[in-house]
């Protein structure tokens, strides 16, 4: 049973990841290209020298101003990352990234689903799949997004990547913890739905709001970066995750439903 769920989670996660990749490629790549073009233009303006076309394969200039000045105009451009990957490869790599992301998420999801099944949430597998995917999207994607929204290339100081990553992971932890508190609350509160659901919403929102107020802000948008492009990129990024979780939840629920109808459940 667990094996069946895990295999289903891995395969459907991969599939949903590729679907999200199609959305990200069609809607997101133009935004990334725009941001990179702005970044290159800013770098040219800053140093008074044109970037070598072949050297900017990372897509954006990285490193401190000193490092950037040091690498500027050199043929291969010794980025702090070392390796060079062309823009075309990066666009193909997008599908690899979303596909592998889906594989990993789908596997973890299916094991969580196996643990929740019959213990918490709706009794129907299909309804549980949709409810779990929706909750995971809210807790793991929307909560961190509200505090630390996605940024396009050209936004963000490379020096602070580790701090930003830790803060982002902290917000994921806050989202998961708040979900656990909300689920405990909804099971513990006596009375009808009019008492339980507001209590559950409060139990979710209050810890998230407190953590958002306590954790430090990250504001690294360069002066003059177009607000419209920033907004469009962030909505597209949230949309990519929405496409992933909606496709995955629907596919997983649909396959559960299908398995339940089969004469001999797999």
């Amino acid at each position, binding site marked *: *049973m*667990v*094996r069946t769920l*895990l295999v289903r989670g891995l395969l459907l996660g991969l599939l949903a990841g590729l679907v999200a*990749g199609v959305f*990200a490629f069609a809607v*997101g*790549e133009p935004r*990334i290209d725009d941001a990179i073009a702005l970044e290159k233009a800013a770098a040219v303006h800053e140093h008074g020298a044109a970037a070598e076309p072949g050297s900017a*394969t*990372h*897509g*954006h200039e*990285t490193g401190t101003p000193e490092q950037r000045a040091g690498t500027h105009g050199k043929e291969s451009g010794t*980025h*702090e*990352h*070392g*390796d060079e*990957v062309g823009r075309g490869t*990066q*666009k193909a*790599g*997008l*599908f*690899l*990234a*979303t596909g*592998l*992301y889906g*594989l*990993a998420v789908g*596997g*973890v999801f299916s*094991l969580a689903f*196996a*643990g929740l*099944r*019959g*213990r918490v*949430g709706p*009794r129907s597998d299909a309804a549980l799949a949709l409810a779990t995917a929706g909750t995971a999207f809210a807790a793991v994607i929307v909560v*961190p997004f509200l505090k*630390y*929204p*996605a*940024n*396009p*290339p050209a936004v*963000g100081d490379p020096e602070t*990547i580790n701090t930003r*990553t830790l803060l*982002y992971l902290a917000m994921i932890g806050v989202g998961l913890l708040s979900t656990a508190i909300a689920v405990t609350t909804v*099971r513990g509160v006596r009375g009808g739905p009019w008492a339980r659901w507001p209590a559950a919403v409060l139990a979710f929102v209050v810890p998230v709001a407190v953590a958002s107020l306590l954790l430090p802000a990250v504001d690294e948008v360069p002066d003059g970066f177009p607000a419209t492009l920033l907004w469009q*990129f962030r909505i*597209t*990024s*949230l949309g*990519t*995750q929405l496409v992933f979780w909606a496709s995955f939840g629907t596919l997983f629920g649909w396959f559960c439903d299908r398995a339940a109808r089969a004469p001999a459940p797999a």
Partner: protein
Amino acid sequence: MSTLSARHIPLSHLVPWLLAVPALLLLGYLVLMDNGAVSQTGGYLHELMHDGRHLLGVPCH
């Protein structure tokens, strides 16, 4: 809803499969967050997954 349904999967069946979780989390880490420290590929993985990282919303350069 709060009672244990007969449909639950016994924990003894579930636990061995949980060994897959660290491997899955490592895969997620390599896709979303590694900057060469674990993968030892320099920045290659980071660069390859670059657009995906930005669009999946994780912090990136």
